[in-house]
């Protein structure tokens, strides 16, 4: 049975299908497997980071630091692989530990010092980017054979390459969805988003959950950084500027409310695909100037927000009518 709570997810899915159909009717080449593979590969790092952002937003918070953390991770990996002889896997573990700790620290600051997430993660954004600069301002290439091995892992059909990192993103989404809907931590995240006071009264460990959420976001930003370093074989401190805004946009387009409490990890997946689709379409079209690109992206964002608003409004209205029916029903009953 389709429940009203799943409506935003269905809307996002329908939007994606509709948008894809429209794009394909203009450029049949967009139906090719290559484009599908590209969507997965090219958005892998963004998707992974957006899973973390989904958790943060579901809890009613926001994390502006992820773009910087991704860049920091890349630079850190590149520098450590250049300067030392440790195995990339060990470096991955180390950097994940670092970024998770960073997220934990931000979460702790937000919770214990009662500071707004917007500001704490803004400072985190400066700090992580700054730390990346301090490590290296130059773009540092990563030339480790293990990287080549990982990059060589893909499944090729019809010239389309389904790469490891795309798979990793899908896996992250699956795990993220499971954690969100099938674990106590996930339920606590929704509970926080539904209302911190009520959650507290219901015995939700607010401190642990808040800190956990930002730790997850930090950790996933780290994972995203690893993926980005695989994607570009380099660490660059100027990389992924503003990715947090892309991630927020994807989460919003995916039907999660920025006020928290309502939304789906799976919705974010389609949010990511929709954004990727828009970009692909713009490139296929190839006539937009730099400024028109910005304007078109902004307008499409607006169109999605409007669409979502309209559908939410319609759903609410229906729910209100249903409520009125049950209300009168219960009155009649008593």
């Amino acid at each position, binding site marked *: 049975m389709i429940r009203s709570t799943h409506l935003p997810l269905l809307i996002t899915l329908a939007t994606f299908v509709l948008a894809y159909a429209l794009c394909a009717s203009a*450029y049949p*080449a*967009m139906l*090719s497997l*290559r*484009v599908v593979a*590209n969507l997965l*590969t*090219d958005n892998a*790092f*963004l998707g992974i980071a957006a899973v973390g952002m989904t958790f943060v937003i579901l809890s009613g918070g926001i994390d502006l630091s992820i773009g910087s953390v991704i860049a920091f991770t890349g630079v850190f990996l590149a520098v450590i692989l250049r300067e030392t002889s440790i195995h990339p896997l060990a470096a991955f573990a180390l950097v994940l530990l670092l970024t998770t700790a960073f997220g934990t620290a931000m979460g702790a600051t937000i919770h214990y010092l009662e500071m707004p997430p917007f500001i704490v993660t803004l400072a985190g954004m400066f700090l992580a980017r700054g730390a990346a*600069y301090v490590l290296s*301002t*130059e*773009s*540092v*290439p990563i030339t480790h054979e293990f990287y080549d091995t990982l*990059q060589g892992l893909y499944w090729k059909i019809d*010239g389309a*390459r389904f790469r490891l990192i795309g798979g990793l993103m899908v896996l992250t989404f699956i795990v993220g969805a499971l954690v969100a809907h099938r674990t106590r931590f996930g339920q606590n995240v929704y509970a926080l988003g539904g209302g911190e006071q009520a959650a507290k009264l219901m015995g939700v460990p607010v401190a642990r959950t808040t800190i956990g959420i930002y730790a997850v976001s930090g950790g996933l930003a780290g994972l995203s950084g690893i993926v*980005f370093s695989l*994607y*570009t*074989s*380099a660490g*660059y*401190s*100027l*990389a*992924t*500027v*503003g990715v947090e805004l892309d991630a927020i946009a994807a989460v919003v387009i995916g039907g999660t409310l920025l006020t928290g409490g309502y939304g789906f990890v799976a919705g974010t997946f389609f949010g990511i695909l929709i954004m*990727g689709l828009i*970009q*692909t379409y*713009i*490139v*296929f*079209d*190839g*006539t*937009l*100037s*730099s*400024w028109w*690109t*910005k304007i078109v992206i902004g307008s499409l964002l607006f169109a999605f927000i409007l669409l979502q608003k309209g559908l939410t409004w319609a759903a609410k209205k229906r729910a209100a009518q249903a409520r009125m029916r049950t209300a009168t029903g219960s009155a009649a009953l008593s």
Partner: protein
Amino acid sequence: MKLKTTLLASVIALAPMAAMAADLTIGFSQIGSESGWRAAETTVTKQEAEKRGIDLKFADAQQKQENQIKAIRSFIAQGVDAILIAPVVATGWDEVLEEAKDAEIPVVLLDRTVDADESLYLTAVTSDLVHEGEVAGQWLVDEMNGEDCRIVELQGTTGSSPAIDRKTGFEQGIEGHDNLEIVRSQTGDFTRAQGKVVMESFLKAEGGENICALYAHNDDMAVGAIQAIKEAGLKPGEDIRIVAIDAVPDAHKAIADGEMNATIELTPNMAGPALDALEAYLADGTEPEKWIQTESRLFTADDDNMAIFNEKKDLGY
């Protein structure tokens, strides 16, 4: 029958020509429009393509490498005939260039090169960023002629390759001349506004009379700095010598007005040589040189700067 074969043969022979004339589709992945120079490069590239009847697919990456990679992949999926990239950063192109190679699409790099195997791209049309810095340094060495000089430097965006290379080049240019010393170096983000702000702080921190020269990684910052110097009651170009890179129209104007001393040209016309090489390659497989270097010409007050200004000002700088 014979006629038919001749016809067929001539059609085959003409095919590349025809493709070039009408059906050639080239994807161009531009970094963005972060500076006037970049805008000029876009304008010139579009003009050059139009001149040759090429259908140019333009993709703006909003200063993000990931967007450039996405664009290149989309170009491949679309099946363009060739790809031009102005890479935002040197690293991280191997994978996607390999995919282009697999799809047999030639790639030409514009204005910056990449850290990838040479076989992955057809050619790179760039200036030598380090060389530009060296020319600037050399100019100052000649200008000062052994006199002591305290230099302040306005760097480009921290971490960007022009900032790094132009800094290195300049330091190489003044190496061995103990009379020249860089006393302050701070980023001006390649923008006029920051150039002015940072110059203001230099003037106060060092004292305007103690600064003898300014080296800016691009003209925009120099133009901003000129205003700061004027507001401090000093004469730019006289009290403080100014050398910068790019040779945008406003720099020529400043030199003509005597407010700036020298600029090194970075031509926005990278696409011309690139498209020439591409056309030759597509026509008969002529392999171009791996590096087509554009000239880094020094302009000083000796040139007819007003004329150059008028010539350049409509290029979209």
